[in-house]
């Protein structure tokens, strides 16, 4: 399917007990709804409704889900491009959501984002050099010569011809523009990058180049990615672990291979059934699960399990009690009543969706950051 993708030559040190670089606890992002002439607050779009996960240093966490399930919102809230409604986010030790504006600004170099639409994310009135150079002026204190050298270095790293330094974004192709987006994100040596569908707007042939570039950079610079995509094949290629989102919540968070081999959550199962199998034998026996009905509105999610309106395996408890995300197998977290777990109590709508640690452990440490 993706012939130009290079095989991943990298091995994660999954057994090294390092603290997670990114720790997200019960993150909520509600967009208020105002109606009427007086614009009264009448409800909320619960775009992200209690999401918790960790990302280890050097790891790539894939975030998949249907359009509108809240992936981008998670990405943006995470690095506080939105002001989240509740929850906590720690990146490299700092509580991002409670930082004062100035501190946050100084923290920004460490966490960056590559946007879905490379055209829209670049200021049309700035040249490439200005776009990449602006954060350098703001944060690096480099003198103009060094700054230019750094800009060239970044352009080289991302495969942009140096001659293009004074061109405007509209003068580039889509792939080149995404490279600019990446170069810009890299400018300040971030530790963590949210890649929000960085390849969705690109031509298939170029998608591979960009993904390869991201991987290269990760290897060379030791980057940590939150890789948002609804392209399940691409996620399978790039991610170490994958979180499946549905209607603002995480349905399942599992290591990549385990997930793709045997999805546990009924939604993950349905979603993955649509992915073509690289193995022709298995592809033959693949059963597509077609879900009935529409995704409910995030402004008015069902009580109990978010998926209960469409789940083929729905049970009575599902409509009343919200299943919390809990470890059901080593390293695999699922929010579904089908999988009993010691952590899943009978409290309805538990707000303590404390995940067990990722494969590497460290879960006890996380507990204290829960809400």
């Amino acid at each position: 399917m993706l012939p130009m993708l290079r095989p991943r030559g990298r091995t994660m040190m999954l057994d090294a007990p390092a603290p997670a670089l990114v720790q997200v606890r019960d993150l909520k992002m509600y967009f208020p709804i105002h109606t009427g002439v007086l614009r009264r607050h009448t409800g909320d779009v619960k775009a992200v409704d209690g999401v918790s996960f960790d990302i280890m240093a050097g790891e790539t966490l894939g975030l998949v889900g249907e359009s509108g399930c809240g992936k981008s919102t998670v990405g943006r809230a995470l690095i506080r491009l939105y002001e989240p409604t509740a929850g906590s986010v720690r990146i490299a030790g700092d509580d991002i959501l409670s930082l004062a504006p100035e501190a946050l600004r100084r923290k920004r170099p460490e966490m960056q984002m590559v946007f879905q639409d490379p055209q829209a994310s670049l200021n049309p009135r700035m040249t490439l050099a200005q776009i990449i150079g602006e954060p350098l002026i703001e944060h690096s204190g480099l003198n103009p010569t060094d700054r230019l050298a750094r800009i060239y270095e970044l352009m080289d790293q991302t495969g942009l011809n140096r001659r293009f330094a004074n061109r405007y974004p509209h003068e580039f192709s889509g792939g080149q523009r995404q490279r600019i987006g990446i170069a810009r994100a890299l400018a300040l040596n971030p530790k963590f990058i949210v890649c929000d569908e960085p390849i969705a707007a690109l031509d298939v042939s170029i998608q591979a180049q960009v993904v390869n570039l991201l991987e290269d950079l990760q290897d060379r610079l030791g980057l940590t990615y939150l890789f948002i995509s609804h392209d399940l094949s691409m996620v399978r290629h790039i991610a170490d672990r994958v979180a499946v989102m549905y209607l603002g919540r995480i349905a399942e968070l599992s290591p990549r291979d385990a997930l793709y081999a045997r999805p546990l959550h009924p939604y993950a199962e349905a979603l993955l059934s649509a992915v073509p199998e690289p193995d022709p034998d298995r592809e033959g026996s693949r059963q597509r699960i077609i879900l009935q009905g529409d995704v409910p509105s995030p402004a008015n999610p069902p009580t109990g399990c978010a998926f209960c309106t469409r789940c083929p395996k729905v049970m009575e408890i599902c409509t009343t009690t919200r299943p919390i995300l809990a470890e059901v197998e080593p390293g695999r977290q699922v929010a579904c009543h089908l999988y009993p777990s010691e952590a899943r109590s009978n409290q309805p709508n538990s707000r303590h969706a404390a995940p067990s640690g990722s494969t590497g452990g460290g879960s006890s440490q996380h507990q204290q950051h829960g809400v």
Partner: protein
Amino acid sequence: MLTYALRRLLLAIPTLLLISLVIFLLVDLAPGSPMSEIPLTVPPEVRLKMIAAMGADQPVFVRYVLWLRQFFWVEPMHQVDLLFGSHIVEGQQRIISYQTRGPVFTVIGERIPQTLTVIGTAYLVGVLIAVPIGIYSAYRQYSWFDQLGTFIAMLGYSVPTFFTGVLMIVIFAIKLHWFPSIYNTSLKVTDWASLLAQIRQMALPVLVLSLFNAAEISRYTRSSMLENLGQDYVRTARAKGMGEGTVVLKHVLRNSLIPVVTVIALGIPGIFGGAIITENVFKVNGIGAALIGAIHANDLPMVQTLTFIFAVLIVVFNLIADILYGVLDPRIRYD
């Protein structure tokens, strides 16, 4: 860019000629006669002679061609003669107003200063207050400030200036005596006292007009800002760790101003057109008042010349707006 501008200008020439003919015919066909303001005590034979002396008894096409010649040859060459002391069009008749029996351009020359000071200031003030209001309204969309701004803009836009103008006069000139109700065009600013007098007499018309102008431009700025504030590149700028000031004023504002600047440029011919109503209400006696007076008096040469100049200005400023757009927005190229 230059060739583009030249090509546009060349293309504008036939359009403008057609416009001039249409205006001429319209004004000529409009009912009324330049004699309507002359008292009935002047006997009919004398009236006929006066009309003949004005040349108003000639057939319409003769007058049109004469006007074309005067406008495009005699008047420009007259300026040349004045500048260089040459005698190219000496003794040739310039465009003569029926009302004043003097050259139309003399009147325009007298009227331009007050129009530019009052209407121009009002426009400038309007722009200067509108842009920040628009920015802040968009930045704090739906805040009380924004709501208030929307309300005032709606007022400024929908309440006619003849109403606000007269209201201002009644309150501030007649009741409170803070400002004069009649503009003194011969006031010369020579010292602090006369400067103060000038400011006082400009205050009311400028207030009324700038409210009107600001209403429009602040709305434009606001919506343009809103459109840009939601763009990804703004998020990029924030993600870069730029301060809020830089994000809003550098990234968002610069992009938002592109359409606003063109709207502002397109409004400039309106300054020269004067604000007919406001000028009349405050007796500013600028170009707008001259035009309305000329229409009342059926002063065809004056009406024709003024409206044609407005047409030219509109064409020119449309071109300027387009070129500005190209200069400001790197995505647009005229080649």
